[in-house]
């Protein structure tokens, strides 16, 4: 039976960073990923990664503390303050590390890492490599895993956690090539499976950013935290919702409505287009809903005044995308954009070490919720999160496995494997002729409508009922392809089950939170309610639906105040 000290699930930035940290602790570590590591969604990050390096002449007095404050204020005060400050203090070190490993950041005239302004930040502190920062970081970390000779199980899809009484002892994975389910033993498992934004139809995320990664621990009894907080990125390309980096606005791009008006003057007169994402996305949506958008669907992101040279140097990837996908050159024409579902602030409930309530089970990156993003993440803080907490989880898991016996807990693993084999054969026996993809597409259509930028009691009650109905319909669906190798039909069936259950958590959590905070905006409760809701939502799985409990947000340094930008 396969055994490693530590199994890391996911080959994006958080997973690779965790693997390197664990390898440096001399642990026998392996990565299990449903893709090849370089394909991961992290590579789609464009604009950059935040660290108070003070390299930009306009940021000479920037400090990690100021970065910490911006993060907490951006989070609408839901982020845990000590953890956020920890992240911003670690930021320079993790950036220098990845630079030392060869990450090709853009440079200042002095040869330092270049930094640009980003939304909700008091200083230009977003380190960037052109507009391909995620791609450069992902390649760099993958290169380091090659250097460390870390074993990668590419295109192995984890389908369940394995538990031995009260600890995590490994997992069960489907090897896409052989079509075999395999038990994999480990003393620690780190989930770094990324976000779930594909439960929304209008998502900027890649196709595999489904909720399956957070659904597995949820089904295994690990709570999900703050799932109702879903970030809508202000600028995604119309109509495909491909991301148009915040760097576009950081470099000076403007937002224009149908009347040619630079409408952010009304919503964030000081910060303008560089307000935090929740506020800018709501502003764009308001313009569209009030009839000042184009075709009732989009507004313009105008880069033309930046000039050809700057666009070619700082935003070449954006130009490639608009040319490839809508045949438009942003040097000559403004880009049609609309908000797109981008990021999950919530996730698997972890502490600052990446540990969960299940001993031996850790999580890091977008699938986790530490919480450093609270109710609204700042642009440039997600890549930082992957580096800081990926490294932390790898280190902590490395320490945790040190004295553990180096052998698989065979009985528990065989039980887990048997259970999944039974699930798989059960799944294919299901009756009915429902098409699971239709169900998934209906879910993805309803989510932006019922739990989108503007929410309310009626919308979300409807939404919840619809999700329940879809869950019932999925019972009448089954994968029909019976082939062994690369049977994506089987895989998608599982993904869709995860999507539905996690969408239910998002919807029900949003219903229960009767206030507006960060990305969660309710027309029926349009203000923040610190007296009742300055707390984290915890959702625990039950067959009837999520059970909610709450725990207070940690407020140590900064008292909540009104957010003005």
């Amino acid at each position, binding site marked *: 039976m396969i055994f490693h000290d530590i199994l890391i699930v996911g080959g994006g930035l958080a997973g690779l960073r965790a693997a390197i940290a664990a390898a440096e602790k001399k642990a026998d570590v392996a990565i299990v990923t449903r893709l090849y590591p370089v394909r991961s969604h992290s590579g789609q990050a464009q604009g950059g990664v935040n660290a108070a390096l003070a390299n930009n002449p306009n940021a000479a007095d920037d400090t990690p503390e100021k970065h910490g404050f911006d993060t907490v204020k951006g989070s609408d005060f839901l982020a845990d303050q000590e953890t956020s400050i920890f992240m911003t203090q670690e930021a320079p070190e993790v950036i220098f590390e990845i630079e030392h490993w060869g990450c090709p*950041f853009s440079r200042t005239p002095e040869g330092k890492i270049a930094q640009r302004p980003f939304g909700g930040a008091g200083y230009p502190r977003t380190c960037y490599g052109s507009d*391909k920062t995620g791609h450069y970081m992902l390649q760099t970390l993958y290169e380091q895993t*090659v250097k460390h000779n870390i074993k990668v199980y590419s295109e192995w899809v984890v389908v369940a956690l394995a538990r031995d009484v009260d600890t995590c002892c490994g997992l069960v994975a489907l090897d896409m*090539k052989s079509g075999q389910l395999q038990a994999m033993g480990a003393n620690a498992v780190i989930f770094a499976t990324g976000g779930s934004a594909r439960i929304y139809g209008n998502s900027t995320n890649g196709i595999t950013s489904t909720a399956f990664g957070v659904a597995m621990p949820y089904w295994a009894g690990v709570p999900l935290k703050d799932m109702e907080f879903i970030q809508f990125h202000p600028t995604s390309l119309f109509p495909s919702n491909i*991301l148009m980096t915040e760097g576009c606005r950081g470099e000076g791009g403007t937002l224009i409505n149908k009347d040619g008006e630079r409408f952010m003057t009304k919503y964030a007169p000081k910060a303008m287009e560089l307000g935090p994402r929740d506020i800018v996305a709501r502003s764009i949506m308001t313009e569209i809903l009030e009839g000042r958008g184009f075709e009732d669907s989009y507004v313009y992101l105008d880069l033309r005044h930046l000039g050809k040279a700057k666009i070619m140097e700082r935003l070449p990837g954006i130009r490639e995308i608009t040319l490839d996908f809508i045949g438009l050159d942003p040097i000559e024409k403004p880009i049609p954009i609309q908000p797109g579902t981008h990021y999950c602030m919530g996730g698997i409930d972890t502490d600052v070490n990446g540990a969960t309530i299940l001993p031996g089970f850790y999580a890091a990156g977008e699938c986790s919720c530490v919480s450093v993003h609270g109710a609204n993440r700042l642009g440039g803080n997600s890549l930082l999160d992957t580096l800081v907490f990926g490294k932390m989880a790898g280190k902590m898991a490395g320490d945790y496995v040190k004295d553990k016996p180096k052998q698989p807990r065979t009985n528990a693993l065989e039980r887990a494997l048997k259970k999944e084999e039974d699930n798989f054969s059960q799944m294919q026996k299901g009756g009915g002729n429902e098409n699971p*993809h239709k169900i998934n597409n209906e879910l993805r259509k309803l989510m932006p409508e019922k739990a989108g930028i503007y929410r309310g009691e009626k919308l979300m009650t409807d939404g919840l009922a619809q999700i329940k109905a879809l869950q019932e319909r999925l019972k009448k669906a089954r994968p029909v392809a019976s*082939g062994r*190798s690369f049977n994506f039909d089987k895989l998608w069936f599982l993904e869709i089950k995860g999507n539905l259950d996690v969408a239910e958590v998002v919807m029900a959590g949003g219903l229960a939170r009767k206030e507006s905070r960060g990305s969660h905006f309710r027309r029926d409760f349009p203000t923040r309610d610190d007296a009742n809701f300055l707390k984290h939502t915890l959702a625990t799985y039950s067959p009837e639906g999520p059970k909610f409990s709450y725990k207070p947000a940690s407020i140590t340094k900064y008292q909540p105040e009104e957010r003005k930008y």
Partner: protein
Amino acid sequence: MTEFKILRYDQDKDQEPYFQTYTFDSPKGMTVLEGLIYIFENIDPTLSFRSMCRAAVCGSCAMHINGLYNLSCRTQIDKYDGKIELRPLAHLPIIKDLVVDLEPFFEQYKKVMPYLIPKEEPPKKEYIQSEKERKKVDPWVDCILCAACYGSCPVEATDPKYLGPAALMKALRFIDDSRDGKGKERLAFVASDFGVFRCHTIFNCQKVCPKTLDPTLAIAKLKMKAFFG
């Protein structure tokens, strides 16, 4: 009606690959990848193909589209008037339909020491690298390892040990990096058997690269460096 003619193969039941044709209505602006997803979700769930970002940055969906290697996500169906013919990447064993075994491609990549080997102990902060030095690696660092170049390279057809355009360009990416200290060893390796001198300068890799990079130029530069130092 849009027509997709797709090379299919299942090692468990097919003696050899065969073409299967699907027809459906495609809205304007639909990409080849979206067409594949439509077929998978609505017509034939047994069809296998890789995909991820649908934004031309992850490199999952490189395939042979109407005679050229490209990413299916960045190819519009309209470009070929609704008649699409798809085959998997060449020079790599087919596992299932459009899914090929990428291990040989990544094995070549791993051979070129694809990681920075710094020439000095790292400073406390970042290495100082001038804008000019940074520009030197610019033409090489955007590679997404999609293997379109590998599939298009006729040298790979006759010589599977040839390192190939992507791996060689990766080597140059580090040779040209002011922070790297192993340029000589890297050059010696790429100049050895199965390295740059196997390239016949056929320009296919340059022609197909979906990121419009120029591996042919990278290989030419490596040849010059290997020859003249």
